[in-house]
Every structure is written in structure tokens, then in C-alpha cells.
């Protein structure tokens, strides 16, 4: 019966086979605030931001850099590329090549983990802390951090969130079987999790419940906001074209086999570099302006979510602009620092100005 329903749904475009995506409206109403942000640095291979409330840290390739007195200084280096970063108990917790989590400095200097229940880490892409423990997301058991698009196209469902306790050295799985885990954030006794390919934020811990569902873009890392709630990065927009490709197994297999990954019909951190890329050529250009409803391959989006899980407002870099692929955000003082993976920039915005601009 279920097979019959799946077949008829596919034929008629009903249920799961409905190729529909939510619109950017209400709290997600587009603006150009990310494009107006100050650029505080352009880097070779930036991957994550972290703050201890006093300073800003950036994972860039094998190095951690610190923003101090308006200048970036090297803080430490590791033997592999860093894929996630967090400040923890006077030190820095970092994921190296997605396969190992290590603490440098502070009380737990030198602590490291590379597996849970005997299963090695594969793609650690985010670290957060509640002051006692570390919460890490292992995006996929089959694809490395940089191959996230492969995981999407393969309908990956092996993501997991792991809790690390530096006091005991233990590691336990909080939840698994996720359709890509990209971010976990402890909030009020619960842990919010970005389940990226399902376009939702779930809360686990004391009862599993939905925080946000049917998001119009792919959710990623979260960072705490000073007055409760979180900043949520959404690194690419959902489009009907990608949703269509995800439902076309034969086409997708051929595409993955025969076409270079950078030219796949898939979300990306940046676009517009090559005429062989999909979608952009089909954008609607009218009177010399690329219309904002042109289907985007890459997009810049950060959403402010309150402690009840309600989106309050959002900041955007729209189609035709550059600050796309937002993968990390950190609130420091009165400013918001944003990492745009597409142009490899760290951006700075005044939170007061954002709220003034987007206030209803």
C-alpha cells in the first residue's frame, strides 16, 4: 500500500513527491544587510568562528586566528584543516579534518576524542558548549565535511550528535540517524539540532520536539544570542530545481557519475564563477537587474530566533550579491560577526543597526 502511494504521489506530485519550497516572507523577508556589512578579513580557507565573549577566533585551514585590536593574529596551528571551533573553559575546542576533537589550552588542555562507541568520527562540522560538556555534530558517516553535497545527493541519513564530557573523557551519542547534522546548541536544558536535509531544527533532551520545520533554506550552525535564543546560519536556499533533482534518482546518479561536483545541480556556497554552472543562466534579468526571485544556487542568510523558537528577523545577501554561504556566526559585544564561506570573508554588522533596519 505504501509502495502504491509512493508511486501515485510521484506521478501526481502529491505528499513527499510534491516539489514545493516555502517562500522567504515574514521573518525571512529579504533585505540586503549582509551585502552592506563591513569586511573584517578575507582568508584562504575559513571554516568556523568562535568567541569567548572577549575576543573572536577563526578557524582558517590549519590555523586558528584571533581578532585582537582590529588585527588578525595567529593563535595556534594544527596538523590538519580545522572543520569546527568553540571556546571552552579557557581553551579552544577544535575538530581536525572532521575526524578528531581536541582541546587546546585551559583546564582540559590535550583532551582528545576520535570515536564514539567504537565508531570513528567522519565529518565533525560544529562544536558547542554549555560550560560543562561539548556538543558536536558529525554530519555524515559516509562523507567527509567537504563532501556535504555528495551526502545531500545520496540522501544521506547517518548524521549524529555526540556529547563529550571533558571531566570524565566520555563520549555518548545524543541522537543519530539524522539527515545530515550540522550544528547543535544547548539551550535551557535541551539541545537544538540542525537536521539539514530535512530543513528543520529539532530539540532533543527532555523530550524530542520540533523547534522549526519547513525552513526555506538549509540550516547549519547556531550561535547563542545575548538576549536568549540563537543566531541560525542557513548556508544555501532550497529551490524547486534541486528538490526536483533529489526526486529523480536516475538523473541524479548520472549527474554524479559524469559531471564535476562543482557543476552539479546542487546548492553551493558561491556561484557565478562559471557559465557551466546550472541555474544562474536561467536567472531573470530585467532592465539590467538580476531579479531577486531568480532561482539561486548560492545565497546568504542568517536568522535570529528567539528562545521560544520563533524567527524574529533575518539578514540576507541575495542573488546577484556575493556574501553567500554563511556557515558561522558569533555575537561579540554589540556586533555580529558572520563567516561567508563563498567569498571567504568575515563580515561585521552592528546588531543595533540590524534591528533598526528590520524593525516592523
Amino acid at each position, binding site marked *: 500500500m505504501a509502495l502504491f502511494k509512493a508511486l501515485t504521489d510521484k506521478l*501526481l*506530485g502529491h505528499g513527499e513527491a510534491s516539489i514545493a519550497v516555502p517562500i522567504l*516572507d515574514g*521573518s525571512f523577508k529579504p533585505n540586503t544587510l549582509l551585502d552592506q556589512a563591513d569586511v573584517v578579513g578575507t582568508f584562504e580557507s575559513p571554516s568556523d568562528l568562535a568567541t569567548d565573549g572577549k575576543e573572536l577566533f577563526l578557524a582558517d585551514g590549519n590555523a586558528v586566528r584571533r581578532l585582537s585590536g582590529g588585527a588578525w593574529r595567529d593563535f595556534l596551528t594544527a596538523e590538519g584543516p580545522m572543520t569546527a571551533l568553540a571556546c571552552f573553559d579557557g581553551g579552544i575546542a577544535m575538530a581536525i579534518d572532521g575526524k578528531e576533537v581536541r582541546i587546546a589550552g585551559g583546564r582540559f588542555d590535550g583532551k582528545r576524542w576520535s570515536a564514539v562507541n567504537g565508531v570513528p568520527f567522519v565529518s565533525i562540522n560544529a562544536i558547542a558548549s554549555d560550560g560543562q560538556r561539548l556538543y558536536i555534530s558529525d554530519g555524515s558517516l559516509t562523507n567527509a565535511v567537504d563532501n556535504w553535497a555528495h551526502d545531500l545527493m545520496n540522501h544521506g541519513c547517518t548524521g549524529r550528535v555526540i556529547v563529550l564530557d571533558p571531566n570524565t573523557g566520555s563520549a555518548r551519542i545524543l541522537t543519530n540517524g539524522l539527515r545530515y547534522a550540522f550544528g547543535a546548541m544547548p539551550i535551557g536544558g535541551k539541545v537544538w539540532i540542525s537536521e539539514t536535509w530535512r530543513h528543520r531544527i529539532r530539540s532533543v533532551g527532555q523530550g524530542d520536539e520540533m523547534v522549526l520545520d*519547513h525552513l526555506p533554506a538549509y540550516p547549519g550552525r547556531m550561535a547563542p544570542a545575548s538576549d536568549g535564543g540563537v543566531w541560525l546560519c542557513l548556508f544555501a536556499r532550497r529551490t524547486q530545481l534541486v528538490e526536483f533533482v533529489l526526486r529523480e534518482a536516475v538523473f541524479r546518479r548520472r549527474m554524479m557519475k559524469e559531471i564535476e561536483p562543482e557543476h552539479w545541480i546542487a546548492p553551493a556556497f558561491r556561484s557565478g564563477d562559471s557559465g557551466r554552472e546550472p541555474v544562474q543562466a536561467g536567472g531573470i534579468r530585467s532592465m539590467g537587474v538580476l531579479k531577486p526571485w531568480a532561482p539561486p544556487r548560492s545565497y546568504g542568510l542568517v536568522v535570529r530566533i528567539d528562545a521560544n523558537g520563533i524567527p524574529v528577523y533575518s539578514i540576507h545577501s541575495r542573488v546577484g550579491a556575493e556574501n553567500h554561504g554563511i556557515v558561522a556566526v558569533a555575537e561579540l559585544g554589540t556586533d555580529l560577526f558572520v563567516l561567508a564561506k563563498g567569498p571567504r570573508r568575515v563580515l561585521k554588522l552592528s546588531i543595533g543597526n540590524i534591528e533598526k533596519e528590520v524593525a516592523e
Partner: protein
Amino acid sequence: MTSAILELRNATKRFGGIPAFEGVNFTLMKGEIHGLLGENGAGKSTLTKVMAGVVTLTEGEMFLEGRKVGPRTPAEALELGIGMVFQETSLVPTMTVAQNLFLGREKRFNRLRGTYIAAQQFLQGLNFHVDPGALVNQLGAAKKQMVEIARAVLNQAKVLIFDEPTATLTPEEKKYFFDLVFGLKERGVSIIFISHALEEALQLADRITILRDGKLVVTDDKAKFDRTRIINHMVGRDLSETLYGAKREVVRKRGRRVLSVQNLRVGAAVKNNSLSIFAGQVTGVFGLVGAGRTETFKVIAGLLKRDFTHGGAIVFDDKPVRYRVPAPAIRDGIAYVTEDRKIEGFFDIMSISDNIYIARLAKFGKAIVSSGEAARIGSDWIKKLRIRAIDQTSKATELSGGNQQKLVIAKSFVQEPELIIFDEPTRGVDVGAIAEIHEVIGRIADEGRAVVVISSYLPEIMAISDRILVARQGKIVEEFSAKEATDSAIMYAAVH
């Protein structure tokens, strides 16, 4: 184009004391194409209906070629040489083109073959390529319109009135229609056409008249208009602001997303439409006729079905839903307050309390129906919404328009909905009740429910909405916060 063929002097039409238009002085010159523009409710259709004999003037005079006339029926107007082509064609769908052309003019001993030959000759003479033997229900919109036009010309119409002639036409059909209109003009026919598409008015018309709130604002040569001037004349406010109140300055805080419509399709009316509705806010949906607003929300409420294949998705309360009938939508917490309350809104021979009680039963059901409970609920809602009636046993038909509307609102409200959709909530409502109905709508949003108000009246949208969505040609094209919205910006989005 030297002298006037049709003239209205100081023309006024009132319905139940409320003017549809008043003090209008309108002149149609011989052989001109005259565009009649204005918002919904500006009085355009009523004005042309007066000319076509569908309604009669309350005050004022009408002159045809200098002769005072006053057609009381469409047949009388047609005899005078004034024909009107309505948006919904008045052809008999099961008859052939030829039969429709000669309907009412048949000879005593009618020969069908003779009718077809006459029709063929006549249509060829007009250069209309329509098969006279074809059944009307098998014709496309443009061809139906051609038959309507042919019928008017056959009746030797000197004045032809088109009400939204291009609303249902494809771009190719529109081009063909424009050629027809220019052809008619060359034959000396004077033409009035109503349109919401400004481009069409600027393309077709020799002169343009703009109506606003039942008053003629301006008549001028086409060359003296551009889009900005037309929009400014269409939306400049005076009467409406006093009627509906000023724009909202304090906006209610947006709650959680209650409804997400994704890529909805309903035939030609709704095209890939997407929108979200939030709790605790009044979302106003503005658009001109044919923008697909009502159809979109009727699909949401289960009153209309979306396209069977690839019709899009509706997510209510984070659950994908697809209602084929209204009952499950009501059970889930969606209430739809109809724009046509007299037909769909209540049972007119039932009392207020029975009407309200029956609405409650539709959602919650009950094994034993209690007339005492019905009376108590009716009495409660009469007080809550200040429905002016002798008591809860008064029949719905005994109420004024405004109080009937409150009854329809009570029927929805008693179902304790999470999302309540008002379609034209103050249409045909007396002036005094408008503010009261707006207050009720505001109260519902203050309670944290999601409220949608579909209205064709821009001042109403501005007065009650926290957030404004603008629809055009079957989809939402723009979103405004009440603070940033202006008349011109909304109208610009609605027509461009």
C-alpha cells in the same frame, strides 16, 4: 471624433442610500476608444451598467447623440445602440455561434441553414474567423468574446462597452482582441472599456477617465497620462480614509508561522503561489480582480481544489494538509468568512442562535442537540459582537448588512479557529458597522490567532493590517509591513 455620442450629466447611483457613484459628468466622443480606470469599488462597472440599461440612475441625465435617454433594460439600451460585453459572457453555451448571434431575432419560420449562412456572411464581413456551426462551449475565451462583439455589432451598436475584456485572454488572444477593437473603431463604433491593466489602457485608449470612490477624478487624452499619474489619481484618498480609519502605526508582533503555502496552483487563477501566515497578526491580502486571492484561500479552507497534479503544498501547523471539503479544515482550526454572505454565509430562514449553534456543531458535533444551549450561545455572541437584533430568535434576514456580517463572523468564531480568513469583510456593510467589524478582527489577532483579510479596498487593508501581501496575476508578488506600506507602493505592486 468631433462630437459627443454619449453623455452623462451629474449622474448619481445609490444602492440603499450608499452611492456607487455620484455627480459624474462623462462624455464619450464619436469613434473614440475610452478607457475607464479605477480601483475595485470605484464605481466603474455600475457606471457602465447604467449606460447599458442594467441599472437605472438615481439622479442625473443621460444623452445619446444629444437626445435624452434612460434605458431601463439591456434590451432597451441595445435598441438605442448601446451594447455591453460582460466579463462573463452572456452566450448560451449549448447553442451554436449562429444560434447565439440571432437569438431573439429568429424569424417565425426559422431555417437553421439560413441562419448559418447569414451568420457566416456577417462574421466574414467583420473578418471574424469563427465557425458559425461551432457550439459556444467548445470555443476559447477570445472566440466567445468575438461572438459577443459580433452580436453587439449585429444589433447595430454605436456604443460598445467592454468590462475587463482581456482578463481571461492569453497574450496572443489579447493581441487579436486589440486588432478587433481598432477595427470596430474604424467602422465608427465608440468604445468604452474597463481594465485593471494600465498598459492596455495606455495602448488602446484615445482618452482615459479615472474614477475613485464613486467620483470622476479626471478625464484626459492618453498622451497626458503615464503610469505614475494614473496610480496617483487612482489611490489619492479623501472619503475612504474617514470611512476606514488611518493606517496602522503600531504593528502587532509576529508569532509562529501557522500556515505555509508552497507553489500552489489552481488552474489559470493561481500560478505557483507561495505565502506564509503568522499567529497574532492581521495579514491583509490586496490585489485587483483576478489576482487569485480568493481562490488561494478557498483552497486552504477546502472550498476549492488545487490542481490535481503538481498542485503545490499547504502546511498548516507544521503538518502538510490537503482538504477536499471544508469539514476537515474546520476541524483542524481554519475558518473562512465568505465574501458572499447572502448565498454562502448563513441560513436566512433560521434564527441567529440556530445559525451560530449549527456552525459549532459542524466542528465539535454533539449526540443530543440542545435548543437551550443554542439560545445561550446565540445570546452570548449577540452581546460579544454587539449584533443589533431584538433577541437571539431573530431571523438572519431581519438583520442589516453589517449585523449579518457579524453573524457570519460569530459562526466562524464559535468554531474556535486558529486561522480565520475574512474575504471582503465589509463589502455591502453600512458605514457604521465597518469600524465595529474592524474592531472584532483586531481583537481576534490580539488573542494570538492568525487572521487573514482579503480586501479590494486599499484603505481597509491599510487600516487593519499588520502585514500586507499584494497579489497579482495569481501569485503574491510583494510583502509590506504596515509601517512601510504606502498607497502608491501597494498599487504599484498590484498593477506592474
